[in-house]
């Protein structure tokens, strides 16, 4: 029984240790922010830190109960990012007199509760596959929601908000998840068809024309988001998500090539005919032109962000000593610039490393899980986090044109927090599914894992062994 030595261990204590480290860093940051407050040291740092610690421990306990084999690194990384974000929002509040940090803390609470509900309700990510087309309908509903007159709200030119009384919400953030679930379900069921057919040109295995259908639909949806909601960031995100998931499903680079061609066509059309896209590209290319700089909707924001980053240099000004209040949206879209200014290149590198760690653990879960649906879902969701970081940070650092996406977990914004915490819950579940003893899904006694026959899937719902083309057809029942 050599399998005994490789039998999975829960590793929840490691998670607890890492959580303590994350919370220590976050509490320290919050305390430093309080020190720099004009009107003397306030107690907000304490309430913020204690509240965040309670939430983190709640998730930790829930994981011990319902997903004890989940990846032990994901939760501490997310708590660290969320806490650093809270500290920075708190810091910007000090400069502007706003109270965004309290709202963010409230939303963190809501998001954590949502994540716990997800963990409790889903338990095993494979059940989501049964509702593939329900998630399609849900995605369509969420995307159309902001366009409904009276319900939708337009903020800064983008019509991606839904207003309910004093609250506003971006349904598109949730659509990111529902779309990922739909794509995962659809592709895991149909990948064989898409894989088998198609003509080969050189090294590229081209798909059949009819298999292009879903991609054209995804492309049209993305263009629709761009045209009707005027949200370049979400548009890029949706299409990137689909492109990567179909690539993962088929393993064919031709999909990426075709997808990039679609992006090129869409990009050129948008740059030509959509004024808000044209303006952003102009502000990106000619950021330091005084005329562009001073223009309404010009490059002021991005250039101020660059000045902030430059002011921070290698070591940063220190928390509370920079001028993030000079940057518009310093606590949301531009939070990376604010962090870069006060924490310096070294500090912001640490933050980027946290993201690399988070995405890598998500990818690890995708590699480890045994079902195609889980692989697609985890890879797709991890990729959205990575892509979203790239689009935002690339925009702030002038690598690409700036688009209005939020930095996951860091930026002020309830919808984004909520959706990202749900994504984390799903990633945790997939990783739990990947690492738990194989029999657990059927047997009630995980302690008997030692007798389980290794890692070979005996779980019927586990669609296929990795890369095995002959997937059973029971998926889309």
């Amino acid at each position, binding site marked *: 029984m050599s399998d005994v030595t490789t039998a999975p261990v829960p590793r929840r204590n490691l998670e607890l240790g890492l959580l303590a480290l994350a919370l220590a860093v976050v509490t320290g940051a919050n305390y430093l922010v309080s020190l720099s407050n004009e009107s003397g040291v306030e107690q907000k740092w304490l309430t913020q830190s204690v509240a965040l610690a309670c939430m983190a421990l709640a998730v930790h306990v829930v994981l011990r109960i319902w997903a004890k084999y989940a990846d032990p690194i994901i939760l501490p990384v997310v708590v660290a990012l969320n806490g650093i974000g809270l500290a920075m929002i708190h810091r910007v509040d000090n400069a502007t007199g706003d109270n965004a940090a309290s709202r963010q803390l409230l939303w963190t609470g809501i998001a954590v509760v949502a994540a716990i509900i997800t963990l409790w309700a889903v338990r095993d990510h494979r059940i989501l596959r049964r509702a593939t087309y329900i998630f399609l309908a849900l995605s369509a509903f969420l995307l159309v929601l902001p366009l409904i007159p009276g319900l939708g709200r337009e903020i800064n030119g983008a019509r991606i908000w839904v207003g309910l009384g004093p609250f506003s919400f971006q349904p598109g953030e949730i659509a990111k998840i529902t779309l990922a679930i739909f794509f995962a379900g659809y592709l895991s069921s149909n990948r064989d068809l898409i894989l088998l057919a198609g003509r080969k040109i050189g090294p590229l295995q081209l798909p059949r024309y009819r298999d292009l259908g879903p991609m054209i639909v995804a492309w049209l949806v993305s263009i629709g988001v761009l045209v009707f909601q005027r949200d370049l960031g979400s548009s890029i995100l949706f299409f990137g998500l689909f492109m990567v998931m179909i690539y993962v499903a088929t393993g064919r680079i031709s999909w990426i090539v075709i997808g990039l061609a679609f992006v090129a066509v869409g990009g050129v059309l948008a740059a030509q005919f959509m004024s808000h896209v044209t303006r952003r590209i102009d502000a990106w290319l000619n950021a330091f032109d005084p005329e562009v700089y001073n223009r309404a909707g010009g490059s002021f924001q991005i250039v101020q962000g660059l000045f902030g980053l430059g*002011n921070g240099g290698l070591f940063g000004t220190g928390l509370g000593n920079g001028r993030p209040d000079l940057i518009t949206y310093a606590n949301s879209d531009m939070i990376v610039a604010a962090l870069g200014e006060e924490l310096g290149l070294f500090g912001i590198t640490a933050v980027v490393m946290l993201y690399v760690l988070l995405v890598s653990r998500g990818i690890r879960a995708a590699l480890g899980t045994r079902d195609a649906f889980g692989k697609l879902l985890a890879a797709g969701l991890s990729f959205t986090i990575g892509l979203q970081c790239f689009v935002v940070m690339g925009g702030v650092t002038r690598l690409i044109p700036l688009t209005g996406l939020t930095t996951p977990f860091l930026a002020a914004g309830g919808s984004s927090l909520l959706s990202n915490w749900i994504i984390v819950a799903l990633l945790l579940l997939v990783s739990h599914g990947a690492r738990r003893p194989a029999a657990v899904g059927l047997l009630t006694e995980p302690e008997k894992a030692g007798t389980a026959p290794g890692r070979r899937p005996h779980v019927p719902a586990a669609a296929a062994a990795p890369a095995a083309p002959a997937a059973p057809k029971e998926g889309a029942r």
Partner: protein
Amino acid sequence: MNQAIRNVWIAILVFFTAIMGSLTYIQFFAAPDLNANALNNRQLYRDFDLPRGAILVDGEPIAESVASDGDFKFQRVYHNAELYSHLTGFYSLTFGSKHLESVMNAELTGQSDSQFYDRLVNMLSGGTNEGASVELTIDPKLQRTAYNLLPDGVQGTIIVSNPKTGDILAMASKPSYDTNKLAVVSGSQSTTNMNKILETTGLSPNINPAIGHLIPPGSTFKILDTVAALESGKYDLDSVIDNPNSVTLPGSTAKLGNFEEGICSGQSKAKLSFIIAQSCNTPFVEISQAVGQDALRDVTERFGFGQQLQVPLRVTPSVFPADLNAAQLAQSSIGQFDVKATPLQMNMVAMGIANDGVIMKPNLIKQVVASDLKVIEAPKPEQFSTATSKEVADKVTELMLGPVQSGTAMSARIPGLEIAAKTGTAQIGNTGKVNSWITGFAPADDPQVAVTVVIEKVDYNTGHNLTSPSMKKILEAVFNK
């Protein structure tokens, strides 16, 4: 499938590597350029949040930073702003800083070399760097008198200085403006205000007329001709010089005459005393040719023409043109052609004659006082140049008594006070407008003040009625007569 997932992971790593590269570029390689970028106002914002020292006149602030609840912790406030605008300049978020606010910035922000030790202590003890206050040599009463003597709607400058120390006691110009209008935080508001200020003819917040306007000095330049003439040994107080009503300029057909209906026509040959008192022109054609342009230029340079000077505001160098032909030299000798002088330059001419030929460096700064009231800088009187000998200076002083006693500046006369002065009227082309001058000092035997009045671009009568009478009022104020 797993291979594809690994490829996705590699793609994400490429994304993050690109971000790290971009951040490294911005925060390390491009940071110095970004910090120095003209659009970058972070340094300015940093300065605006620091207590900035005051500018004081006789112990009272004319510019100070007061605590503010606005966007910044401090707001710059100017008192009697119009009176001092051309001295203090402004400290503006939108337009930067100007004049004393600019040249004394290091002291006002506590960054000057002499404040190094305090900075060090503050750095170690965590205290804030407080700027020092700058006290001016200006006498507030004289400054107000001078400013009020200039009527609204007229471009003019009055300078009063102490020829023995170089201290500038008053330096007032009109038109003026309210510097507070440029110190407002709102960029659009200050831009609107700036545009309104610039609508006024002859007014620029960037130029102090007393040191920045180059004006043909007219007959006040004859002081320098006389110095050159006496130094040459070819002329003395007893010399009798031809004084025709009009002469043809050498090498030219153009004529140069004495002032129409003037008293000059009363003597066809005259001594320097008469020529200076009545400001006759024609004798200087002969004198300038006899002395030569090199000797004359040498005199002008000793008196400050073409020299760099900071008081500590930067003074625009006055101009005596090079390579003059005979006709141009003749015209230059009566302060026309391309001869141009700042009001301060002609005040320095009076200062040099008054102080036995030695010009003391004009200076506006009395002392720099740290926030703990310790005096960290107190400029001592400094010699600018030896412009001429005591002997020549004494003779020119004697000649300059004439205009006030019996000549062109009789309206400056004050019983019981000997005033040495020279008037000037420079025609501006054929516009009918003139630049009207008077520069001089009193008392002649022991000069306490040198006074210069310039009224720019006015008709002859307006100018004439403003220059000598203004000098009289200033001297009355100085000597309490």
